[in-house]
């Protein structure tokens, strides 16, 4: 290892981290603490007048943040749970049974990994089912969109679990349901962590599909509210509120990541490179 590399590498890492991640985060942090007059032309100067508390309070009240948080939780949590449980059931069958029909069903079910959701006709269908602008509709759409991911990851994982574990339980007289709930699901724990974070990453920050399915109004999620705060004419230059909102909205994801960091990292990487 050459000395240039030995000292140059950490220096380069620090420089890149500072420029690529530090500068944008610094901009968000300082702007969210500035009064409106200073924030109209965003820059990297520290605030002349500190007022983070007032900005965050404004963002919470004007952006309907608490309602948005509740709305986000009410669609994202059920979607994640459904994606995991339904996905695990399907993955178990796909991993253990072997026939043309099963392979065909598996291929169809993971096609959502590549194919784009047909968002316009989703709206049409939900209207006909009476689910337009409703949380059940949004949950069904998210579940349909992310099932492919969980089925793909989980099928690969179950194939690597020895069948003997299930057989031993079967000898003891366990029914398929009991085997699924007591043996297969607990063994899936590592891949569940990954699937959870992946689905949360997309669903928590999704604004495109939420626009079409939920629209604005009472059921708007956090990202939809952020969009409204940022695009309303009245708040056109309200960078201080936009960034206070961005900070609060991002904190839950960062917290989830910090708590489950090791599992998430190993899960993402082991599923991808096979």
């Amino acid at each position, binding site marked *: 290892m050459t000395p240039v590399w030995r000292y140059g590498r950490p220096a380069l890492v620090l420089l890149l981290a500072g420029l690529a991640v530090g500068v944008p985060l610094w901009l968000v942090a300082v702007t969210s603490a500035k009064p409106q007059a200073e924030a109209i032309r965003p820059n990297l100067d520290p605030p002349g007048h500190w007022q983070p508390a007032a900005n965050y309070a404004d963002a919470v009240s004007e952006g309907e943040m608490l309602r948005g948080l509740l709305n986000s939780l009410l669609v994202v949590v059920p979607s994640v749970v459904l994606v995991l449980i339904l996905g695990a059931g399907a993955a178990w069958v796909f991993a253990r049974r072997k026939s043309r029909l099963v392979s065909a069903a598996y291929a169809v079910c993971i096609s959502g990994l590549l194919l784009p959701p047909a968002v316009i006709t989703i709206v049409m269908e939900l209207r006909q089912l009476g689910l337009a602008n409703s949380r059940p509709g949004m949950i069904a759409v998210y579940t*349909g969109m992310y099932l492919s991911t969980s089925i793909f990851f989980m099928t690969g994982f179950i194939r690597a679990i020895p069948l003997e574990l299930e057989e031993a339980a079967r000898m003891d007289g366990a029914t398929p349901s009991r085997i699924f709930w007591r043996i297969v699901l607990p063994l899936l724990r590592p891949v569940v962590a990954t699937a959870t974070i992946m689905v949360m990453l997309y669903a928590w920050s999704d604004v495109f599909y939420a626009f079409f399915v939920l629209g604005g109004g009472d059921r708007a999620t956090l*990202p939809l509210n952020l969009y409204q705060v940022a695009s309303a004419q009245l708040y056109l230059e309200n960078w201080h509120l936009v960034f206070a909102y961005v900070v609060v909205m991002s904190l839950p*994801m960062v917290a989830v990541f910090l708590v489950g960091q090791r599992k998430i990292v190993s899960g993402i990487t082991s599923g991808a490179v096979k």
Partner: protein
Amino acid sequence: MADTVVRTRRQPAAPGAPKGVGRLPRAAVHHPWWFALPAIAVFAGFFLVPNLLNFYYPFTDWSSYHADIAFTGLDNLRTIAEDGSLLRAIRTTLVYALLAAVFQNGFGLVLALLLEDDSRFNRFFRAVFFLPVLISALATGYVFRALLDQDGAVNSVLGTDVPWLGSTTWTLVIVTLIHGWKWMGLSMLIYLAGLKGIPHDMLEAARIDGAGPWRTFWSVRWPMLAPAVTFNVTTALIGSMNTFDIVQATTGGGPAASTEVFNIYMFRIFGQGLYAQASAMSLVLFLVVVAVAIPLVVGLRRREQML
């Protein structure tokens, strides 16, 4: 289902022994279909059916202006072809996807090589570079608009007056750079896993044979990274064809529609109540993704086997 393999290894079926309970094959008893049915039903109902409907509604006059929906043949496709939006959306989306995939993978690979060893320093900075993945794409877009606006932070630091988001040629490139920035952490993790999977003896052997760092990279590491490249390039290309948030937050499709990718167009036209026309664009997006994805996956898999 009669050909279902009985996978019980411990007790090979004695001749004459029943093959399963009653007349059902064993697989059907042990792993019954109904475990898969809820998932199949939701996936079919809310993913496949809309995609099938998407092959019908583009050929109707479905809109917010009248209640009935009548078949109109190729009218919608003709409209979007003649006003130039069809070709423009295809070209913009393909250029966007290509550049975004190049930037995301380039940044990710460089970061993975820089942070390869498992030291405390490196683990900390891996988490730092993963932060943008956790921030929503919409928020990312606003952050970069504040940075790159003509009145924004970058011009104020550099003392310049460059319209970063106002060029009909270069703004598309800048938006794809932002896309690459947002997702580079995910590519980095996957390349790191790929690098970790390279057997140590192989690198040792290359070193003993006198290979320098460059030679080792091109002759040993890069070929061994093939599965990670397949995964990263596929997800980046396909994922960025579905982009919306970053573009909407930075440019909203402008200037002069030069960054108007498929989803931005659909969003705009849907907002005008021209549902069938939006659906036609959605169908074209579907066909473009299929046309890109199939050769891509087949080609990259073949490349893995050749390396």
